[in-house]
């Protein structure tokens, strides 16, 4: 990693955006990076818009404010596009990843003229196929690594396996499902990665 990256997550309470931000910090830490992962707390309600943040850097991170000029924005729920200004401050040479069932061409006009790279991913489809349930955070985490190249893909897969084996030591049946979700996301994004 030559320089740092700042990421802003938009989700709804209960969807795991905060968990995804903390998991990303976790896996980047294992590659030797300096990491920061934190949520912004308001009145906590299921379904209310929430924000979480990541700073990943080759140098010690001292800033403790929220992120206003992110390199990457991750939208875990596309209904937020109607109510939250998700591209606010997003760098033009940055990117946005949106979880949606709709095709990318339908999403781009909703982004207030954002000129950077736009990626869409159907995390629900992937999660249901891989895990049998809707947990968008694993596909979204995978999409972040695929889009940013924050770390080598095979290293990411190896570290995630070891982290799931630790986290789900009492529920080993969900390990393979989560690993599948990571891989399926990469496959689903391949075309867009080549285009962009």
């Amino acid at each position, binding site marked *: 990693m030559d320089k740092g990256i700042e990421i802003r997550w938009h989700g709804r309470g209960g969807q795991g955006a905060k968990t995804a931000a*903390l998991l990303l910090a976790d896996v980047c830490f294992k590659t030797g990076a300096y990491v*920061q992962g*934190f949520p912004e*707390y308001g009145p906590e309600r299921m379904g209310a818009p929430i924000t979480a943040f990541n700073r990943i850097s080759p140098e010690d*991170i001292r800033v*403790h*404010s*929220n992120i206003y000029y992110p390199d990457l924005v991750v939208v875990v729920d596309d209904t937020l596009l109607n109510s939250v200004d998700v591209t606010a401050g997003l760098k033009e040479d940055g990117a946005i990843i949106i979880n949606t069932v709709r095709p990318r061409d339908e999403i781009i006009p909703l982004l207030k003229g954002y000129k950077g790279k736009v990626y869409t991913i159907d995390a629900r489809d992937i999660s249901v196929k891989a895990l049998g349930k809707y947990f968008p955070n694993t596909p979204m985490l995978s999409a972040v690594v695929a889009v940013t190249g924050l770390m080598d893909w095979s290293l990411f897969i190896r570290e995630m396996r070891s982290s799931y084996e630790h986290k789900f030591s009492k529920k080993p049946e969900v390990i393979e499902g989560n690993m599948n979700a990571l891989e399926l996301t990469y496959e689903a994004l391949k075309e867009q990665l080549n285009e962009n």
Partner: protein
Amino acid sequence: MSVKDRMSGNEAVAYAIRQIDPDVMPAFPITPSTEIPQMVSNYIANGMMNTEFIPVESEHSSMSATIGAEAAGARSLTATSSCGLALMWEELLVAASNRMPCVLALVNRTLSGPININCDHSDSMGARDTGWIQIYAENNQEAYDNMIQAFPIAEDKRVHLPVMICQDGFITSHAVQNIELNEDSEVKEFVGEYEPEEFLLNKGNPVAFGPYAVSNYSMEAKKAQEKAMEDSKEVIISTARKYKERFGRGFELFEEYRTNDADYIMIIMGSAAGTAKQAVDDLRKKGIKAGVLKLRVFRPFPSEEIANALKNCKCVAVMDRTESYNGNGGPLSSEVRAALFEYKIYPEVVCYTYGLSGRDFTVENVYEIFDELSGVSEGNIDIKQHRYINLRTKEEA
């Protein structure tokens, strides 16, 4: 050997508590410090520490039980935030005046109202005159390091006072960052065995704690307490030095960041100090001689040392993360101006109130403040001595 890890500020403090393995921890949950007793309870349930955990029905009781356990001769601590600290009020003074070397892990959160769960320093600043030593942290690492130094300071025979270890609610308590952790055995050795001199369960040597004192004695007791607070400064410094020699990290009363040749210095506490240091690095690249004095110890207040550190600069910004409602700036502003007057050092001083109830504080805010300081010292602008930063205007609201 230190171990590199990543964890939140709350996890770091709970980890330190496990390593210290105190005798007793009474606690009552309150956001954003709830995770600390929760994680300690897990450690205890998993057989990883021997602390007696007492679930109580309120913070008044958690502090009362901490005092009771400490008086019995047990090393004791608790954790809380905001209204929890407010409910402990009476007991905070009882702990200090009875010279109980207990510890409180405080996760700073605003006091009502409007009711809000986010960070400012109104809880601990309200308790600044209760007789507790107060130590503040910039990040998870400092919260961890300060926690390990708390009992050696509190239990020193020259001190015998309670210690409050403060960190910023959510901003550091819930942010996962890199951290270096000490080995368990090294922490145990650093903290040492607790050997109370006078305690209730000391068979054959009966004592009383907290009896009535008539006026003939009460004032002397308070003066003795004040003397202990003065003497604690030396102990805080020597403990920090010992810690740094051993583990290679930390600061004494404050950190001076690029202040040596600075024309403009910002005095600030807690997590915002990190943001300020980043901004200072950016400004230095543009040739602006800015620096940061990050205050670690607010009680005892290092008046002489701060005045001395400010003697060569032109203009100072004092940053308060609480409001005193006195029309004259916050508590840090009052203390710093009093110190400068006492030691006859007269830079221009501007007092800022920032970050109330979790209002964000950014590097851009720091640029803005240093810009104002240079305007003031050049005589280009005339601004009020007490200002709010990052306050929304009527149009923005």
